[in-house]
């Protein structure tokens, strides 16, 4: 079982919403679509589901061409950001609704609904209406309705975005377990890199309608094929600086900071990307580069410290474990983990392979 998008493109009028995309999603995988708000995640998911037709290209499901097949004929479930439930049905009827439409007998409905409700901890509230439930419970109801169908393709469009911070954490942890024993393909759209990392599976990074990279989540995170993929997959945002390489030394274009690199690279100008947690107030890793900075602001979040600082004309963000209180304007030393530097050429393609 697999879902394949072949040369799929979507244009509305003169605007291209999705650029030519080739994507293959395998059975029993959770695939995260990671990108900012208007990157095209929802459009892509609607095309995958059959809610929308691509302008060009084909959709193949299980080696059958399903392009243009209406969503009612595909076996698809979708969960949205806003908790969508039938307001006049109670939880039981909400979950049972897709089964009732396809004419499943009531005994089987009872069993299946019971199982899914148990999985999503909804058993005590089967008699309540959506407006009597909290946000988290409403979203669980929507999830239960999506799961009870035993669909081949389950699409989740930022399902946790409207939930409180802690609820989001809880539900995010439960999600992979919900899909464990099912034979289906799951697609999960989100703007948060931490969602992708904690859910695991595969990730496709999207930027302005283009799928920039697709692969195992940790691979895409550790080896972004381009600057764009790295930027999408970074929270807080990645630090990017222009550097110059000559001989075996690299230096920041602002000149004072120099270091040696131990792999082959043509001389010239490049961009280097460093994630904030690889710049710390203490030495980390074998290969570290000391940099002095003037503190702009320090944000302490209980267990971590985010320090914004400047070095010459460049601004950087560092994320250190523990509490490191710094005053505005203070001169301080920070350490960058050279092993985690990502080098990109002028076409924004990755050139390191550390």
């Amino acid at each position, binding site marked *: 079982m697999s879902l394949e998008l072949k040369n799929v493109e979507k244009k509305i009028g003169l605007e291209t919403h999705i650029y030519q995309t080739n994507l293959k999603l395998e059975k029993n995988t959770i695939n995260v679509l990671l990108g900012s708000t208007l990157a095209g995640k929802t459009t892509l998911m609607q095309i995958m589901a059959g809610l929308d037709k691509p302008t060009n290209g084909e959709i193949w499901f299980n080696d059958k061409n399903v392009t243009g097949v209406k969503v009612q004929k595909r076996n698809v479930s979708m969960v949205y950001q806003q908790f969508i439930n039938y307001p006049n049905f109670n939880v039981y009827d909400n979950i049972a609704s897709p089964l009732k439409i396809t004419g499943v007998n009531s005994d089987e409905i009872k069993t299946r609904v019971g199982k899914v409700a148990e999985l999503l901890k909804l058993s005590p509230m089967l008699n309540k209406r959506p407006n009597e439930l909290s946000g988290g419970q409403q979203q669980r109801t929507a999830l239960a309705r999506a799961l009870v169908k035993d669909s081949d393709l389950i699409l989740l469009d930022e399902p946790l975005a409207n939930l409180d*911070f802690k609820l989001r954490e809880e539900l995010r942890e439960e999600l992979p377990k919900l899909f464990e024993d099912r034979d289906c393909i799951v697609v999960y759209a989100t703007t*948060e890199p931490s969602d992708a990392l904690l859910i695991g599976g595969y990730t496709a990074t999207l930027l302005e309608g283009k799928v920039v990279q697709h692969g195992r989540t940790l691979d895409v995170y550790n080896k972004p094929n381009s600057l764009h993929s790295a930027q999408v997959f970074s929270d807080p945002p990645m630090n990017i600086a222009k550097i110059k390489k000559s001989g075996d030394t690299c230096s920041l274009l602002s000149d004072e900071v120099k270091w040696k690199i131990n792999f082959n690279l043509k001389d010239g100008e490049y961009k280097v990307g460093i994630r904030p947690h690889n710049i710390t107030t203490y030495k980390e890793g074998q290969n570290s580069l000391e940099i002095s900075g003037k503190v702009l602001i320090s944000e302490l*979040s209980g*267990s971590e410290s985010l320090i914004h600082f400047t070095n010459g004309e460049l601004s950087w963000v560092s994320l250190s474990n523990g509490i490191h209180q710094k005053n505005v304007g203070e001169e301080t030393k920070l350490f960058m983990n050279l092993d985690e530097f990502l080098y990109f050429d002028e076409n924004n393609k990755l050139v390191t392979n550390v």
Partner: protein
Amino acid sequence: MSKITLQNLSHSYLKTQNQKEDWALRNVNIEWQDGGAYALLGPSGCGKTTLLNIISGLLQPTEGQILFNDQDVTSKNPVERNIAQIFQFPVIYDTMSVFDNLAFPLKNRGISQQEIDQKVNEIAEMLELTSTLHNRASGLTADGKQKISLGRGLVRSDVNVIMFDEPLTVIDPHLKWILRSKLKELHQKINRTMIYVTHDQTEALTFADQVVVMHEAEIVQTGTPVELFEKPKHTFVGHFIGSPGMNILPCKIDNGNISINGKKIEAKVNLKENNFSKTEVGIRPEFIEFNKDGLPVKILKVSNTGRHKIVDTESESGKIKVIAKSSDEIPSGSAFLNFNKDYTYVYGDNWIIE
């Protein structure tokens, strides 16, 4: 600018109150100093927005008083209290330009045009809105509009306190981070009292000098982000702050000895009596280490978030999460855990035993 004192504040949206649940706020007592950055943190429905509206004067409390600089302002409206409030979604005057939006509060107070021009330009520069001053306000992005809302509060030089009601709700995630740091920077620059309501711990902990944690209409703990993180006084605070939250495990206390499932645990506590119906040990995932000896657990799952690893383990008394460095080797199958005794606490009936 002023000192804010809340005395015995309680509020109910119902005309008569028969039980605990009828109250939206119960017995709130707080004293906030001039110029500080404060946060009200809690899950949906805990009463934080109610409290904010009472402080700003948009809501009259059922019981209790509010004092600004030791003067009773309980019966005064927002204009008389001289406050500014920024709401969850941007509230701007659609038909006016950015400049006119910012000038509006000053015009209504009869300030001279010259002074208005100077003030508006000053604030626009601080908020990086100068280039859009003559554009229609309705054409800006969500974060631009929120900046306008913020600007309207800042132009008034006599504002006592600026209140934020979950202001980053509609902002794009990658811009959220920037606006968040900007707010902190702003506070450092202008030193006005700011009160920030949110359910997002990162926002609260990075912004505020002091955080008030609320749960079910009551204040559970007040402290600096570090205090709340390192020593939660209530299991709710332990669970709510930290991502993931504190591990809470049932324990037995016998003659001053604490044990979890027979294994002795050392903690920072002075145990005199034990007449609690429920005793638990609380330890944060950041303060647990793998070792050759200790509490036996089974390793369930290892998640990599890029900056650290989260290990899900299971002991006989319940699940325990551990945070380890990205570079650490995690044992597989079974392992032993050691708790850092300086950060291990004992809770009796949910409150800390000191």
